[in-house]
């Protein structure tokens, strides 16, 4: 199942995404949380902390700048550019989610 979370900035979009992702994971489901916002804060709201969130954002910027070889599939992307958050939620910070290919 894929869930998109949208709304005007400041409406509570990221808090809603984070609580939903962790609640689903607590039910024993495998959850991938994708931060597609231009102002990426989902890591903080998920509880991975601001340092780890910053690290993921900077990895994403390297990927955008083409400094890092692009990964083959989602699993690899999350292994290399994501992190494991509380309750087992896997978090990835990404751009251009509307593009057809990963990476």
């Amino acid at each position, binding site marked *: 199942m894929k869930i998109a979370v949208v709304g005007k900035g400041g409406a509570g979009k990221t808090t809603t995404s984070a609580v939903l992702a962790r609640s689903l994971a607590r039910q024993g489901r495998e959850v*991938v949380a*994708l931060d597609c916002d231009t102002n990426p804060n989902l890591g903080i709201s998920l509880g991975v902390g601001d340092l780890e969130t910053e690290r993921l954002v900077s990895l994403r910027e390297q990927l955008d700048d083409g400094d890092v070889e692009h990964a083959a599939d989602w699993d690899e992307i999350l292994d290399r550019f994501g992190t494991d958050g509380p309750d087992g939620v896997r978090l990835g910070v990404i751009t251009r989610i509307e593009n057809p290919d990963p990476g």
Partner: protein
Amino acid sequence: MLSSGEFGTSIVVADLEAGIGTLSRLGDSQVDLTLVVVEPTPRSLDVGRRAIDLARENKQGRVIVVVNKVVDVETDLALVREKLGDAELVVVPDDDAVLDADRAGTALLDHAPDCPAARALVELVDLVFDSAA
């Protein structure tokens, strides 16, 4: 990207950019559920209205509206209904704990797991699977 199908049995929760930019560029039928998050203010509800229309137009699955920061249920929901019509709603009470968690740089579920806003948002899980079945 969402359609690349590499996620297997995982549930994907994609926190899109603020506004409707990404949603407008996603291809048709990319997700099974669109959560439109609003607060009961005219400007937020205008964005919400456009998001609902886009999600329906582009067949982005079921649409649920999460109404955050509700202070007065009667007044706030009257405005929401006026702007969003008969959309399926989840009501989340205004709660200082959300701001406190943000300020502390922590997750709401770690900071105040039993606060009213967290409890309302946790219930969203049951709704997601309820009629998705």
